[in-house]
């Protein structure tokens, strides 16, 4: 039979973000495939080298659009590691609230994104409405809906506004109630389950071969391999939460873990709101005005658990006013590039979009 070439993306309703999966198919079965990245390449790593430490906070959230805060956090922690800077206690807790809200919003987006490849638009609408409420909360806290530019070197940019705890509590209580509905609509919905169960499996050996992290890994290896637990940053060692795992990694299991993680994030936010101390939220990394802040010479790697896995900035400072080199470890790098090349062949065309969605492939962080 003749091989035929199909493109999934860059302009395709089932594709998340501006990337393209090239597939050579025989009938419905994919024979060869690879990702064509670079459509969102902006030369971030070069741009960061050219911007001051303080200016970088306006650039870095753009590395990953659906979940921008992990970039800020990773950049800030890496710089703080080199500076050996102690962040004020309150700032840690505020950061955790922001990061967990961002995780919920990214999970909701991915979960709602399931609506695209499976045709379940109700799910998508519901998820996006809830996500929109998170964006409204972000807007109140940080002054912008998407690019918050809130977590900065030395803490957070400003304290939480008055009354925001109330807003967050109302939202997470409401969301917790609705999680059941999300299950009903999505992973417990008979028609959807039929479509997604036992599709695009990820066996344990493949995890290690690819270097996949995050939900993909946890759904396959059945161990709580979460950066928040294993290498705790901020104050994740002082909150109690579970890391949902599974030993059978199909699309449904991964979505199941997503819903469970939303639940855990809600628990973490509750604890943060309860345990958050009063006090300052920001220390300046250096004396002088911001354009003359410097960071001493050094190397640091700052891993953060994003909604898609281990996300990290590798930072090299030369003692100057700008970073010497910042490398971004995109969490979706292994599953996005190598995963599609090595593991998609053998599955069906219509499952490619499910792989992209459930493994969490974020094209801007691959391209940078």
């Amino acid at each position, binding site marked *: 039979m003749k091989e035929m070439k199909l493109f999934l993306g860059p302009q395709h309703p089932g594709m998340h973000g*501006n990337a393209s999966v090239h597939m050579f198919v025989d009938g419905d079965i994919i024979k060869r495939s690879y990702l064509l990245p670079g*459509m969102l390449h902006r030369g971030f790593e070069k741009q960061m080298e050219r911007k001051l430490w303080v200016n970088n906070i306006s650039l870095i959230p753009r590395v990953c659009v659906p979940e921008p805060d992990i970039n800020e956090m990773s950049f800030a922690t890496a710089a703080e590691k080199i500076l050996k800077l102690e962040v004020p206690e309150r700032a840690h807790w505020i950061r955790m609230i922001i990061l967990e809200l961002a995780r919920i919003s990214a999970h909701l987006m991915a979960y709602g994104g399931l609506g695209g490849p499976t045709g379940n638009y109700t799910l998508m609408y519901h998820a*996006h409405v809830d996500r929109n409420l998170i964006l409204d909360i972000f807007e109140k806290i940080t002054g912008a809906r998407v690019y918050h530019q809130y977590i900065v070197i030395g803490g957070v940019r400003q304290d939480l506004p008055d009354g925001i705890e109330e807003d967050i509590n109302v939202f997470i209580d409401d969301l917790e109630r609705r999680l059941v509905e999300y299950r009903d609509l999505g992973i417990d919905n008979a028609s959807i389950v039929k479509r997604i169960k036992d599709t695009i499996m990820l066996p344990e050996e493949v995890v290690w071969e690819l270097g996949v992290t995050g939900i993909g890994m946890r759904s396959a290896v059945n161990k709580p391999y979460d950066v928040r637990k294993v290498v705790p940053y901020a104050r994740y060692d002082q909150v109690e939460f579970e890391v949902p795992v599974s030993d059978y990694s199909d699309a449904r299991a991964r979505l199941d873990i997503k819903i469970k993680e939303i639940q855990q994030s809600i628990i973490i936010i509750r604890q943060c709101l309860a345990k958050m101390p009063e006090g300052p939220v920001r220390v300046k990394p250096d004396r002088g005005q911001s354009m003359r802040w410097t960071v001493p010479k050094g190397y640091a790697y700052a891993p953060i658990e994003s909604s898609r896995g281990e996300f990290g900035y590798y930072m090299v400072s030369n003692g100057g006013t700008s970073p010497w080199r910042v490398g971004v470890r995109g969490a979706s790098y292994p599953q996005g590039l190598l995963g599609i090349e090595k593991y998609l062949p053998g599955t069906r065309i219509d499952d490619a979009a499910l792989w992209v969605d459930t493994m969490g492939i974020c094209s801007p962080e691959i391209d940078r």
Partner: protein
Amino acid sequence: MLSTKFTPKNKMTKAEIDRKWWEVGDYFRRNSLWLLMYCTGCCAVELPPSMTSAYDMERLGMGPMATPRQADILLVSGYLSLKTLRRLIYTYEQMSEPKYVVALGSCPINGGIYHDSHAVINQLDQYIPVDVYVAGCMPNPESVLNGFVDLMEGIKQKTMNGWKRYHDHFEWYKENQKNSLGEVIVHDEFHQ
């Protein structure tokens, strides 16, 4: 009055009839705009809220469309890297006329935060004509929707004729595309 020449009252020239039909077409067109779902850059992340229940774009008669040939609006959501620009031009040229381009965010206007990047273009209107720009980084859904209403009003007033400009200045656009892209169509391992 000396003139005895008789002009039939109801006879319109072909151009006039065409114009009338365009007006009728424009009325329906602007009340049912189809948006090509091509997320070229970061501003695309504000589109789901605008399309779904929260801001519900369908109240304006707008909806997403999967294929370029059936779409009316090409939405350039944010920055354009060279690689995307190439595909955007393919897409734009595939769309059927009349077609409109809406550019979101700072980047298509003058490069935005990527103005000094080696991979991102600075001005979109050098390569394809743009009808409406929406400021913001990124623009809130409110701004996006207001931008669309601006477009509708422009269609009504017949000022949104970027696609005509593309015909009239085709050489100029191609020249610019070539200067920045080198070659619009690429041949490499990805496109055997």
